[in-house]
């Protein structure tokens, strides 16, 4: 039976990974994800799991070692944040191209300059187009569940792609929450031992990571793109299976009080919980507000989004990163692209919020929703605004 335990979410992430019959962990410390590998190294040092923990000398080597280990058929896990993820950047698209089911937890943190250790989503957005499946957790329970789900999704024979799980730095990594931990037997039933499609071993010789010339490169990219797009079906299937076994529902986009909603807030990550409170408050004031929380960022659930916003007049899309020089924030751009040409397309308002750890409060969301409600169709949409920024 699952037990409800109060724990720091980073430690819970490590505990969840440890439930997954891990073989190899390679990680390098960087705030705010550090407690995840720290706690995993504790678990390995105490002999609670039989895994190799590689204390690498950089994030570049962390992901490289994960590649090597995963290629032998080992179940492989790593975690990082911010600059660490950037340093992994060279290897990110290679992991997905090699179809290695590495799972990575990202304690999301702003990219430097100026250096800032606090939360936003600029780290993962910089790696958006690397071909990984990208999940966003809103609370500790989702972190635990999604780490276990991530291995099952990544290793599925029709997927074979790496998965990153995003949990907001500090807002999630350093928060203590009561969470349900599945027991080992339940996880073992849900997640069998990893059986690779191909593995590095002299008993079955294979060349991995070969050179792709122009005559094959486009096809290789198409194959990777199709694999990522098609993974959505398996992700949904795995989530269904999870729900049946553990009773907690997961969907690419989670709707909260969207029935009859005229203004819908769209969020990713831990903002979702704060946004729920704001929606409750506005509903109390008889304002028809609703909320969509995206759990799946890549592959982007366009179809689900189109369905979810039916009937809304305005979408207020929250981005926790700037796509410098772009027409929208990353989520704003995806939303607009997904809705373009739809009949009765709602007006899309796009706010950049909570950069570099700036607090996002219930009051902020109420103000954003109330302002968004004034947006009228037919007027040219503003690209985006940085909410609450001084000096403008």
């Amino acid at each position, binding site marked *: 039976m699952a037990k409800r335990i109060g724990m720091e979410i980073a430690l819970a992430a490590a505990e969840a990974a440890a439930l997954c019959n891990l073989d190899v962990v390679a990680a390098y410390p960087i705030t705010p994800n550090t407690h995840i590998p720290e706690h995993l190294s504790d678990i390995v040092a105490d002999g609670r799991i039989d895994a190799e923990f*590689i204390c690498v*000398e950089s994030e570049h080597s962390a992901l490289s070692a994960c590649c090597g280990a995963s290629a032998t058929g080992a179940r492989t896990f790593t975690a990082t944040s911010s600059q660490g993820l950037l340093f992994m950047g060279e290897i990110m698209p290679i992991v997905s191209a090699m179809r290695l089911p590495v799972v990575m937890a990202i304690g999301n943190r702003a990219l430097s300059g100026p250096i800032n250790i606090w939360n936003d989503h600029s780290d993962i957005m910089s790696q958006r187009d690397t071909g990984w499946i990208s999940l966003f957790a809103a609370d500790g329970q989702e972190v635990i569940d999604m780490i276990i789900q991530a291995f099952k999704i990544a290793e599925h024979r029709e997927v074979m792609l790496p998965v990153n799980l995003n949990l907001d730095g500090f807002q999630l990594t350093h928060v203590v929450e009561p969470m349900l931990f599945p027991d080992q037997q339940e996880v073992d039933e849900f997640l069998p031992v990893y059986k690779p499609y191909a593995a*590095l071993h*002299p008993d079955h010789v294979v060349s991995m990571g*070969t050179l792709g010339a122009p005559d094959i490169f486009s096809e290789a990219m198409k194959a990777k793109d199709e694999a990522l797009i098609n993974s959505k079906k398996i992700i949904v299937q795995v989530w269904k299976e999870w729900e049946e076994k553990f009773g907690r529902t997961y969907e690419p986009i989670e709707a909260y009080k969207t029935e009859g909603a005229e203004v819908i807030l769209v969020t990713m990550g831990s903002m979702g919980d704060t946004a729920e409170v704001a929606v409750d408050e506005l509903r109390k004031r008889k304002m028809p507000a609703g909320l969509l929380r995206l759990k799946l960022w890549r592959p982007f659930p366009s179809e689900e989004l189109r369905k979810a916003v039916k009937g809304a007049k305005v979408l207020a899309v929250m981005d926790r990163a700037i796509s410098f020089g772009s027409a929208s924030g990353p989520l704003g751009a995806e939303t607009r692209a997904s809705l373009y040409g739809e009949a009765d397309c709602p007006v899309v308002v796009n706010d950049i919020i909570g950069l570099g750890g700036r607090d996002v409060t219930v009051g902020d969301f109420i103000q954003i929703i109330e302002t968004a409600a004034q947006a009228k169709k037919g007027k040219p949409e503003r690209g985006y605004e940085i909410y609450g920024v001084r000096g403008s």
Partner: protein
Amino acid sequence: MSIVESFDLYAPRLVDKGEYFSAGHRACQGCGEALAVRLMCKALGKDTVIANATGCMEVISSMYPTTAWKLPWIHVAFPNAASVGSGVEAGLKVLRRKGRIADRDVKTVCIGGDGGTVDIGFQALSGAMERGHNLLYVCFDNEAYMNTGIQRSGATPFGASTTTDPAGLASFGKKAWKKNVAEIMVAHNVPYVATACHSYPLDFMNKVKKARKIKGPSYIHCLSVCPTGWRLPPEQCIKAGRMAVQTGVFPLYEVEDGKYRITVEIPKKLRPVEDYIKIQGRFRHLAEDEIKTFQERVTQEVNKLLDKVNCLHSWSDLKE
């Protein structure tokens, strides 16, 4: 003649007839590196996994859908052969322990060129050696970024003209001395470090065999003549490697548990460096003064090495 050299006379019969790095790859004519890789594979045998850095050897051997590799082989990127190898080694170890793969020794071997080893891959190499993985790293050093067109690396020798540090009216090419990574590996307290060259195939293969048996990290720095980049005719490849050794430019030695040993005798009176450099177009511009400086430094480096050979003891002799 030393005992090892007499043994070498008989060793050719013992060389594996199998080919693990097959013909048909796309290396240039007279490529010393491709020869060295082939010899290394023969010495390693089939229970080997190769982690290859980006570079000539990866490009010439793995054009999809073809492969020259009959050993399990992985290439990920340029700077990370040692960290990919670290992961491979850890993966094989844990899977064997858990009974998910066959219960026998499979050696992880990382290979990279000089750029992928002494420059961009240096941190990964240092990390892997410090952690003490059971892996062999072989650097195939052709003394420049040959794959991208003969650019200067940390392993490019003094005086060589490269496409990014060329000789010109105001420059004689590279001013700095070649980075000595074998010595840096010794400083990592690696139990086995050796230098080698394909022009001494049995010496090289014996070193690979020895390194393969080490339960821990080992490092071999293999000088690999690149006729294309060194500007010499392909048929001079083996000769150039031999001259590098005979002139003392690249002495062949091994360091076992801290104890140095010269494995291919260095002549008491070194052959002049000029003999070595005059056959290579990359040194063609060197003036008398620069050749003199080159010679003085080579003599000094050889003496530094001989000093270590004569003075340093095996770690096991230093316990008390």
